[in-house]
């Protein structure tokens, strides 16, 4: 207890975040062992993990770097497609764990590469302009993947952007991406355990980055770019660092997500998905990593809990979003919350209240 008190505040905070994730895992495992876990909830565990990773990684761009990105689903998409292709091609040829690790690595690296390609020209922009360009990036990825036909036969890879026939493959060839049909017949591989391991990995990397020297440099760019430049911080380098890290984890989340289903289509990764992830970040609190984790998990489960009220589902979902937003962001409500909390504090702990006064 003594050591906990002397611990640095950020370390303590981060430990609580890890504690929540591990606690969630343990609770689910216990429920599952007791047979209390519904199919409905167990089916959502992997998507929850994927959305949590996406929210954490987007929070790095939006909350820590302070740039609005509306193309996060684009990175998720390129990661998902590249990782899934690796998984499908390697399936049965290498041990499953190796194929899985490779597909996550490839998904992350490819998404990171796209992060770099997009980031170099785009990070010269900021604010609204950056938002528009990232939005366009997401749409470009969606449309290109939608029109993309990829297959391989004995003579090598074939690609076409017109239709399946113009790939000119041998009849014995295998189609990997079938245009708007995407990838079908994926062997499912994602499990809740893999998801939680990846969430913890993401938290480790991103929390350490935030609390490092580089992280402080990134935050200084957010707070005042001119001042940061004047003290000699390499703006482009640190912006790219945050942007690419964010893209890599979006790619990994994409692989985790796609390997949970037997088919993958580009249409899923559209503007709406980008916005959904942004909603997780904003509701959880911009720059607040633990908030993103909780918001992503709750808002993924919420629409399913509301199935009971059927037609009013989306209405209630929207109202909840608005209420939470007002409750956590509106200045008046924040002030009111503070008054109530102070009231509680003075009632239960008069000595401390006096100290504050």
């Amino acid at each position, binding site marked *: 207890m003594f050591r906990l008190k002397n611990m640095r505040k950020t370390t303590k905070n981060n430990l609580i975040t890890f504690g929540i994730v591990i606690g969630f895992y343990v609770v689910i495992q216990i429920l599952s062992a007791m047979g209390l876990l519904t199919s409905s909830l167990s089916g959502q565990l992997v998507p929850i993990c994927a959305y949590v990773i996406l929210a954490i990684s987007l929070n790095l761009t939006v909350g820590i770097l302070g740039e609005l990105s509306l193309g996060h689903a684009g990175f998720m998409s390129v990661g998902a497609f590249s990782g899934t292709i690796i998984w499908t091609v390697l399936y049965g040829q290498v041990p499953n764990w190796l194929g899985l690790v490779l597909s996550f690595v490839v998904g992350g690296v490819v998404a990171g590469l796209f992060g770099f390609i997009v980031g170099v020209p785009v990070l010269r922009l900021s604010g609204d302009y950056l938002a528009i360009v990232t939005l366009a990036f997401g749409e470009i990825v969606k449309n290109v993947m939608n029109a993309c036909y990829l297959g391989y036969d004995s003579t090598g890879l074939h690609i076409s952007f017109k239709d399946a026939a113009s790939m000119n493959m041998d009849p014995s060839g295998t189609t990997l991406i079938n*245009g708007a049909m995407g990838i079908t017949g*994926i062997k499912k591989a994602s499990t809740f355990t893999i998801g939680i391991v990846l969430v913890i990995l993401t938290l480790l990397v991103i929390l350490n980055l935030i609390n490092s020297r580089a992280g402080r440099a990134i935050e200084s760019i957010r707070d005042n770019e001119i001042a940061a430049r004047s003290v000699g911080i390499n703006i482009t380098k640190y912006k790219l660092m945050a942007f690419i890290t964010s893209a890599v984890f979006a790619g990994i989340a994409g692989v985790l997500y796609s390997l949970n289903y037997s088919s993958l289509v580009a249409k899923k990764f559209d503007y709406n998905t980008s916005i959904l992830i942004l909603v997780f970040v904003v509701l959880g609190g911009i720059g607040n990593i633990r908030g993103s984790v909780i918001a992503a998990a709750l808002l993924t489960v919420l629409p399913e809990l509301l*199935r009971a009220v059927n037609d009013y589902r989306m209405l*209630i979902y929207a109202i909840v979003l608005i209420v939470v937003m007002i409750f956590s962001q509106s200045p008046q409500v924040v002030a009111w919350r503070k008054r109530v909390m102070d009231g509680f504090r003075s009632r239960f702990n008069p000595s401390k209240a006096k100290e504050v006064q």
Partner: protein
Amino acid sequence: MKKLISAALASAMVLSLAACGATGDSNGSSAAASTGDAAATAEASNADGSTPIKLGGIGPTTGSAASYGIAVMQGEQLAVDEINAAAGKTVFELKFEDDEHDAEKSMNAYNTLKDWGMQVLLGTVTSTPSLSVAGEAVNDNMFMLTPSASAVDVVETGDNVFQMCFTDPNQGIVSADYIAEKGLGTKIGVIYDSSDAYSMGIYNAFAEEAAAKGLEVVTAEAFTSDNKSDLSTQVAKCQDAGADLVFLPIYYNEASQILIAADKVGYKPTFFGCDGMDGILTIEGFDTSLAEGLMLLCPFSATATDETTQKFVSAYEAAYNETPIQFAADAYDCVYAIYQCVQNGSINGDMSFSDMCEALKTEFTTMTFNGTTGEGQTWAADGTVNKPPRVYVVHDGAYQTAE
């Protein structure tokens, strides 16, 4: 005062959420207690001791594809109500879940239905979500009969997945054969949606078969779901290429725009569509005279004169105050096909969904079914349906059988 109201609203919200969560949990624990098999619950059985069979339906009842999901839901509900009323007991229970035409939501809906104790899945309505759900249904050995997911990959997922509708490639091939056989056009133009699996599936097979039959495809114009607000360019290109027949393997909303655009420039080829075209006469504000002469390959017509169709159409109109489209007819047939198996005595409500799946697999590959979408329907072992295709032509705002 404002604060008070917002606080009250917020607490009401929390309470309602808690209530929802609680019901979800209790459903789940009861399903978990029976560990998935033999979902026979005492309170649901009939007076004569038989247990109702739980049918699950999945489809988009909200969102862009809602018209199809709602049609299927209503078709299934109508059939279930009719069967239960005729039998004088609860033969089927139906629960229909929304998937918003999204694979992830569809999986969630499937899992929710499993918690409820579903024994047969009559879905899903659209192809993309179907692919994901089919994968899971194969893992679980849950019998899946989709009314309208026509992508060929759906049935290829496993041997317990069956289709009530034609597959996309099948429609493309039959269309090309029909056009070649009847000599409907010498120069053929195609307008298709390259971002849509349904449209691409038909187009690819059509292009192949057309080449094999010696049809001349002079132009193939694509659009995507993002740029379909103006399709006059595609129409103009078909006109420039001199196409005298334009093949439209697309849904009726886009097709109606093409008809309007063609009418504006005075271009009058023969238009030929597939089952997605069904519904074009019901679009609000669309001048149906523009559709005069439009041909479509479709297994169902609300104006057909046979007894089964007439009975279905009048019951549907009485119940929902609208004319059924092909999706509703397919869904209606799905329930009756399962009912035929019940009457044959091969399945009953006390079976686990896995045993039921095995029984239905044998039954479906051997039986012959007569329904609103065709007489003498049979299923191949791969799950595809075999029924005679029908071609209709629009005349005076109604379908008529083409010569």
